[in-house]
């Protein structure tokens, strides 16, 4: 595991902790920094990170707090407080 991968992991943790503590701007800063590190090192961000951050405003999403999660036919729609929507599929179990 490279330093860059570990940085991204730690930044995701920090972002989540900051979002839980109500410091949304700081969580945003950590998310942006993690994205930048991934970009510079040509890494794919972890799936959990991609699904729990807003592509538009870089907020760390906490379902029920600053994100709305709705199930549609075959996919999940997650709506950030900034009204950006992300969709990803789910498989009926």
């Amino acid at each position, binding site marked *: 595991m490279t330093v860059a991968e570990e*940085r991204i992991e730690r*930044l995701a943790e920090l972002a989540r902790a900051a979002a839980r503590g109500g410091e949304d701007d700081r969580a945003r800063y950590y998310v942006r*920094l993690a994205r930048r*590190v991934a970009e*510079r090192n040509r890494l794919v961000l972890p799936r959990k990170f991609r699904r729990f951050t807003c592509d538009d405003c870089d907020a760390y999403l906490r379902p029920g707090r600053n994100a709305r999660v709705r199930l549609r036919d075959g996919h999940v729609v997650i709506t950030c407080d900034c009204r950006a929507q992300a969709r990803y599929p789910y498989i009926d179990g």
Partner: protein
Amino acid sequence: MALTPETLVRHELNGLPVRVAESDDSSRVGLLGRVVVETTNTLQVETGGGGSGRVVTVPKDGSVFEFAITDDAAGDERSPGTAFKLADAQPSTPASPESEDRAGADGAGRPDGDPSRGQRRGAGENVAYVTVDGSRLLSRPARRTETSGDSPWQ
């Protein structure tokens, strides 16, 4: 590449417990807290715990930082008081050899385990204290990782 004294300069600083060992501004010396925001030229240190503390901006240039590395540096909430007192009793690293080391290493590639890369001290309970001259951290936060990569081609 875990967070070790060797990789600290390239690793994530946000979230690490830190003590300002030396500073041009004497009022910042001894400042104890956690790094919350890093910019190119400064570290913002949150003193006191749990988001209630005050955030102090410390310039990297002209400061010497002492980072505490634990096995789980990101997650656990240690009580910093006693552990840092132990480190306080020890003499701190002079700034000049570190900057020389950096200048020389740029061309030649750094040998592994070079003792001048950061002073290491064992202090029990899996905590290591690493003293780093702030001038070695002068970089954009996202670019610090790349200054000497893990690639054998560099």
